């Protein structure tokens, strides 16, 4: 186990720069998720940590040792690939024991480690099979087994769940998290799925176009997004955001007044953000016209129009509103977010 630190890490492919100076400290035993839209550079950053890509600039250290010039095989890391990358000509047992075999460990030790990992991952019945004889979920587990038999300093995951169906994905999410709580190995986990990030991470680094937009605990990012990008990226359904102007403690937007608290000066142009669950239908407030009602049982999602802008509302319980009906929305001022219209930075 060990901490990982990125210092001003830069990556260029030919003439294109894809990472613009990433700095990030991960403490021993922490589970950090790198999340961001496709192409933002999260896999590249992970692969640089794994030693699979050259480091153009800056340094990466594992356990206090700078590893820029250390081969993958000497970094003492284990990685789970999106495609699993199981060795097709080896059985599950040999796949899992491979890294130990390469380290010339005694066969008895290898057998014992593989047996333990197989037990944790419920793979015991499949040890004699080849990867092609397994389902997607089982292969995924073998890939994890291959990582955990080694007891490495750091676990790396690159979108390990994206080839699984929705149900299995949720189950494996829980399993990986339980595994981390049991092994307490430092983990860097890459995903583009913000729900995965929110549910699994100790801390999340939200990335965009080769930069870290914000680093923090999941609920910190949710409650106090540092900028518009994070505000829009984290949370599902996404935060409602629209243009407005500050006017005596509230925001004029879409032809109505939205309550907000402090920080901005009168006349300042802002982007006003409010999460769907912080807009309750009420007897009085902002008038809106219902467009779609999506009951989900415990909650109901309503898309309504304020002026011409669609606004998403998430209310607890059920609603008997129907399309075309006029309702009133009461925004909770304490949960309103204001961002500078020009820079997108939180006010």
């Amino acid at each position, binding site marked *: 186990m060990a901490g990982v630190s990125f210092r001003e890490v830069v990556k260029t492919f030919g003439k294109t720069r894809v990472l613009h100076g990433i700095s990030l400290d991960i403490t021993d035993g922490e589970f950090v998720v790198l999340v961001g839209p496709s192409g933002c550079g999260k896999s590249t950053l992970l692969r640089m940590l794994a030693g699979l890509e050259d480091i153009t600039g800056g340094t990466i250290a594992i356990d206090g040792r700078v590893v820029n010039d250390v081969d993958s*095989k000497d970094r003492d890391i284990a*990685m789970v690939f999106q495609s699993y990358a199981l060795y*097709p*000509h080896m059985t599950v047992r040999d796949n899992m024991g491979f890294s130990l075999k390469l380290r010339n460990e005694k066969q008895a030790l290898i057998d014992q480690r593989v047996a333990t990992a197989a037990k944790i991952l419920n793979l015991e019945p499949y040890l004699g099979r080849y990867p092609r004889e397994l389902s997607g979920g089982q292969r995924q587990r073998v890939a994890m087994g291959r990582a955990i038999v080694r007891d490495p300093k750091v676990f790396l995951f690159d979108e390990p769940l994206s080839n699984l169906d929705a149900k299995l994905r949720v189950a494996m999410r829980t399993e990986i998290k339980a595994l981390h709580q049991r092994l307490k190995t430092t983990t860097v986990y890459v995903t583009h799925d913000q729900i995965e990030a929110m549910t699994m991470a100790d801390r999340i680094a939200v990335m965009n176009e080769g930069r870290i937009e914000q680093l923090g605990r999941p609920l910190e990012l949710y409650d106090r997004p540092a900028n518009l990008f994070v505000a829009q990226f984290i949370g599902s359904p996404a935060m409602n955001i629209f243009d407005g102007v500050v006017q005596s403690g509230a925001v004029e937007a879409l032809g109505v007044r939205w309550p907000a608290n402090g920080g901005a000066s009168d006349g300042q142009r802002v982007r006003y953000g409010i999460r769907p669950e912080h807009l309750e239908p009420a007897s009085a407030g902002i008038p809106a016209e219902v467009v779609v009602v999506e009951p989900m049982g415990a909650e109901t999602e309503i898309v309504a129009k304020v002026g011409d802008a669609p606004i998403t509302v998430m209310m607890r319980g059920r609603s008997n509103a129907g399309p075309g009906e006029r309702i009133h929305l009461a925004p909770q001022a304490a949960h309103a977010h204001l961002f500078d219209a020009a820079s997108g930075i939180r006010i």
Partner: protein
Amino acid sequence: MIAPYVLVFLVFVVYPVTYGLWLARHPQSYVTLFDDPVFFRTVVNTIVFLMVAVNVKFALALFLSGFFVHDRAWIRWLSVIFIIPWAVPAIPTIFSIRFMLNPEWGIINSVWFRLTALDGPNWLNDPTLGLTMAMVVHIWKALPFWTLILIAGRLAIPRELYEASSVDGATSWQKFKYVTWPSIRTLYLSSTILSMIWTLGDFNSVYLLTGGGPADLTHVLATLGIRYIRLDQVDQAMATIVVALPFVLPLVYFMMKRLSANE
């Protein structure tokens, strides 16, 4: 609708094979053949040619394919140059090699003499050296093709397998042993067998270079038939083809078995 296939089969396979066998039907042909001292030497040469040339060629192809899979611009260019021997027509190039190897005025011995002030070897007038040079020409000519095949085989291996093995701690040799070789082994063995079949029929490398000489000591089964035809012994020539069948048929059999097993 199978009539056209049957017709093609009759015209191009059944008729020539039957006709050949019919020409080779006299038992006397075989007695004469086995009594011919050239024949025994030819069989030995053929076996040596098959075993040495094919295996050396494949070992080289395996090695070179590992080099050419690297994704660099200059390696691409080099590979284009490397393909040339295979792409050029056989007859003029092998003749030109033959001229280069001429002991008196060939370029190789001229350079040899200039560098060492000694006469170079008598490349094609020594049976061992002659057959060796024929094998070298054969390898030189066929190597690009088989290297390409093995490159294709290597390129089909997912890159993540190499990355996973790097992370798992494998050295280059271990990556070859545990990732590359298991993935291309089947291709390598099938190609070797196919190449043996083709090599058995390789007439050019030997005939154009040594003509079977000196003293008919460098013939292989593929060239022996021509020798008899030039001596007007057509049924003798056909008999050599029949004698080659014990070499070819097991190879063809293995090949077919592999192909159907891979389905």
